């Protein structure tokens, strides 16, 4: 059956079984590879996307349940040639090692800053506790979120 979504602002009609994981649809049907597979268990956060502005795991989310909703992936925030200020903040802080966790973390950062433009360190770590980082880049990531909060988003 066809499921209608809005992905990164564009309408998308996907012909899949409604219980197909949203992550598979984004990665394999729409070639949006920035949402990543880490566990399929909603435990690591590498698949995080915004659904109607809220951070949600895509790995075990049925695509059918997102019908008619607006989905934003890391590609919807900014591209290498036109990076979002949160992405720029992460690069300025060199807040990455392997980088596998970053796209999901940046998505959660977007949601956090949208609802709380001046988060405390404690607000930041609670928002990011859904995410794992194996390389131990946590302190830089926290600094990058603080920097993003201080930056003014381009008009």
């Amino acid at each position, binding site marked *: 059956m066809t499921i209608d979504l809005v992905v990164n602002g564009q309408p998308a009609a996907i012909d899949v079984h409604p219980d197909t994981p949203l992550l598979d649809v984004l990665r394999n049907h729409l070639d949006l590879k920035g949402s990543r597979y880490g566990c399929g268990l909603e*435990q690591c956060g590498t698949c995080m996307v915004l659904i109607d502005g809220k951070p949600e795991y895509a790995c075990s989310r049925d695509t059918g349940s997102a019908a008619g909703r607006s989905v934003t992936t890391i590609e919807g925030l900014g591209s290498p040639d036109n990076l979002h200020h949160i992405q720029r903040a992460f690069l300025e802080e060199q807040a990455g090692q392997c*980088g596998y966790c970053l796209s999901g973390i940046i998505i959660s950062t977007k949601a956090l800053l949208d609802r709380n433009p001046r988060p405390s360190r404690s607000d930041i770590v609670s928002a990011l506790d859904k995410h794992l980082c*194996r390389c131990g880049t946590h302190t830089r990531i926290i600094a990058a979120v603080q920097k993003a909060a201080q930056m003014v988003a381009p008009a």
Partner: protein
Amino acid sequence: MSDALPLSILNNRHLGKWLRFQADRTVRLAVGKVEIGQGVLTALSQIAAEELDVAVDRIDILAGDTADAPDEGSTSSSQSIEVSGRSVRLISAELRHRILTRLAQRLNCAFEDLSVEDGVFLQDGAPTGHDYWSFASAEDFSRDIAGTALPKSPSSYKVVGQPVARRDLIPKVSGAAFIQDIIRPDMLHARILRQPSPGARLAALDEAKIRKAARLPIRIVRVGDFVAFVGEDETAVHRAAVAAPTHATWDGARNLTPDQQEAAWFRNQPSDDRHIGDPGPSPPGTVVSESYSRPFVAHAALAPSCALAEYRDSHLSVWSHTQAVYPLRNSLADILGLSRDQVTVRHAHGAGCYGHNGADDAALDAAIIALQVPAHCIRVQWRREEEFAFEPVSTAHMTRIQAVLDDTGRPIDWTAEVWAGSHVQRPVFGGTMLAHEALPDPPPPAKPNDPTEANGGGGTRNAFPLYDFPARRVIHHLALTTPVRTSSLRGLGALPNVFALECFMDELADRAGIDPVAYRLSLLSDLRARYLIENVADRCGWSARGPAGTGRGLGLAWSRYKNKAAYACVAVELEVDRDVTLRRIWCAADAGLVINPDGARNQLEGGIVHAASMTLKEQVTLDADGITSLNWQQYPIMTFSEVPEIEAIVLQNPDQPSLGMGECTFGPTAAAIGNAVAHALGVRIREMPLTRERIAAALVR
């Protein structure tokens, strides 16, 4: 610095294999070391840019490619800057020298009159009309590398020693960047039904039920006891793999016992035993001894392993996040009965794991399927539980230290006795590849293996103390078998050994009634080590350290990685209630000449968090069927809210050779936490991880 050429050059003497000038005014630098999140490609680019006098942005680096890049073995043991960095420096200096020598002849001027500015050649500061791209010719690359051109003096560095941003992070924060994201023509997705253990035989497989679970058409590829589900739809092959274990019957799977998950199990196992260091017997005196241990721990990369393979026109092309493209190519060729020329392995970025995880095994999976399904690109993606259950883990490790003390409570004789499985079982070192066990002609059992002491040791890594003790020895019991496959993980035996050594030093200091830092300094003549300890003790407020047993602890430890590489000292402040809460961590490191200070600090911080996670939380658990810690709830790692403020500084020591930084904080962090917990509690816990259960047990002792 040794005059001998680095191994990377000795094994790859052709200059054109390393450097090339490209039409778009970039410089192709090809290296055998690969990016594993440690930022090494940026540092190597800085070194080439420095010696060639081109902007660092012009360096177009290719890493880990058996067709187009040199063979530098594996990316491991903090050797990339030490060996590859030194090689790139010598090679770049030599190429610059060859080209400018020829230009001096052409212009009939002195070599010294020439200079290079971002690749453009100047004579006495004026343009010559020549640059690398217009002037370099085949003859500049034809002779073997001699390694005799003099590199720049560190005092004239403009690029080396400066923080340089990593270019590879840009795609990683914005979209496709990893091996998992590669799209190839005719790509098919694959998942594996894993043989539960070596020697297990597939007695029955209900293919109809598996196809039904997949819901879309799949192929089932069987070679011996190796089974894969292959198809165009990734969701379908994933469903098949999730359903498959309940539709498969295996005979002859191994049975493990619960005691095998603890390091103490190794105390009673057959082993290769070696005595290293000073001969016995120990002199008379007060004898004290304690045992310390770490359990099996996982690499636990954030992404399960992935590989791509395609077999076209009798050639097998493989993409892998392996740390060792050439060794992997050789293993694949040998196992699959191909010649080495028939196999190309290319590195693609993966999730960080700091060791030998399932990457190589996934590559063999993909290659086996590719030979059965030629003319397609086979993409194998391991599942989360598959990664935890089947990646090689780091061996459990026990270290018992015995010291003979003099009248002042200081050691006059020191023995470290180590019981552990192999710390390195890469296929090239006698280890087995996972799917090989399931093929019709499985390999013989893996041979126990550890690096030699000259290469830093494995179980013995950092087992020798660097204190001024009159007699020191190590007894190493390398177990002949392990209950589960083991292989290399960041630091090998350094973390458990430094934990043992530096915790024992605190215990001896307490026993002697001497402050632990003063006690260490009274036994340590190495000036670089003394400087770091004093630096960190000063910054963490050591002199105001309170009494033990208040619930608040401050601990400190140091080591020189492999006893010959980078120095690091770490202090940890924490609180212990039911759990340990880290408050602040201070670190100072001395790794000689630092190429990229920002990248170096990133490595220190990452090593600290990784080690803290291992010390406080991590343990691979087993039952009769194998590993039972199969997801992030069963194998928890450090979270954002648990990570404290970290102040890591890198000393500038440009006159000393560059040393790798990725592993130097690992042991000191573990030991500093052990010492801080003992200070907070007033009692010592000697088994990692330092969990709530162990804290409770220690308090009722």
